[in-house]
């Protein structure tokens, strides 16, 4: 079971991929940070609600400035949008593949050098 990453001052996001991490926020600031990272993450996340329900989808928007802050998700195989209030969230799991991490430019260069040397 993962634990919450410590908040750093003005911390934008972790430098390594957070794929596979589980965040259990215990304060409103930690919750805001977790959802911000989920919004920034280019993969699906699993949101554990306080009801016990688990919702997996892509967080494409969030608004902390509303009277009742919420985030919006696209769910796999469904056309409608799922809206989840911040106050419903118990945990965030970065369960889906991080599609923006690990695609190395160096790997592509190596592949192209290998194929041109054949």
């Amino acid at each position, binding site marked *: 079971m993962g634990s919450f990453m410590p908040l750093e001052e003005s911390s934008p996001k972790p430098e390594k991929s957070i794929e596979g991490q589980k965040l259990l926020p215990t304060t409103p600031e930690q919750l805001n940070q977790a959802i911000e990272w989920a919004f920034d993450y280019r993969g699906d996340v699993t949101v554990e609600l306080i009801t016990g329900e688990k919702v997996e989808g892509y967080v494409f*928007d969030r*608004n902390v400035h509303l009277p009742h802050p919420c985030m919006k998700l*696209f769910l796999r195989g469904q056309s409608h949008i799922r809206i989840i209030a911040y106050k419903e969230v118990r945990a965030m799991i970065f369960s889906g593949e991080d599609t923006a991490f690990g*695609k190395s430019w160096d790997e592509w260069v190596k592949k192209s050098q290998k194929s041109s040397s054949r």
Partner: protein
Amino acid sequence: MAVPVSQMYRVCKYVITQKIKNVKRYPLVLMLEPLFRCNLECAGCGKIQYPDHVLDRRLTPEQCWGAADECGAPIVSIPGGEPLVHPEMPQIVKGLVDRRKYVYLCTNAILLERKLIEYEPSPYLTFSVHMDGLQEEHDHAVCRKGVYEIAVKAIHAALKKGFRVTTNTTLFDDANPTRVRRFFDEMMELGVEGMMISPGYSYEKAPDQASFLKRNRTRALFSQLLTNRNRAWRFNQSPLFLEFLMGKREYECTPWGNPTYNIFGWQKPCYLLQDGYVSTFQELMEETDWKNYGTGRNKKCADCMVHCGYEPSAVEETFGSWSGFLGTVRATIFPNAI
């Protein structure tokens, strides 16, 4: 000039109308992204890194037309993803052309020759083909060999059928000015109407982070490219924007000038940054905290000199003062005078 007189007239009329109405923030080009699915994975692109179920989502023709009606900009640019992958793209384009929007359909041209039969040549429709340099540089930038040849063949085919064709070029850290100038010669020899150039934006999500230009280097590169330019080169961009790229002018960004609509909604604040979404164009214009963006105001904007934010600034200068207007005339007639 690369742009037809009818289009220039339409844009002039639109901007002057905004001035007369005292509209402080007006859109010039709608960036309409109907999908993010692409048939390439270019290392410099930060637009396509999403789970498959997100890449499978598309805007409907009705959503596209609705966005164009809401926004009111005279020009609609359709990037992506790869727009030609969208099965309803011919319908989308027809609806926009019927609305007398000047449509720039951006494409890597891999599907273009095959899909030309689905489109009608029109003064309102331009295929804007992504070409990042001569063959070696372009295939390297798009991470696939053979794409340059396919694109050149498609450009020939489109021109032969009477379509308007331009190129759009993004330049990165490794750009060789001598070879880029030769690339400009080649593109004009192909017979394209004009070229659009821009420095690449350092998308956080793009795999290649090392190659993005910083502002000073951007200015140095574009100064080398555009000084003593070949008179045969035609750029379908504001000449003042080109001077900005060369470091001859300073502008603040105009992020509302090229508003973006995609599968997530209206994107705040601009085409390059993703800071949230709203449901209507009016919300975008009224609820975005514009003072939080721009060079010096946001670290994500620090090195940006991309056309989507700064070309509207150049257009604003053209129509904002007599000196701007006369400067535009001078830069158009005597591009090598500075």
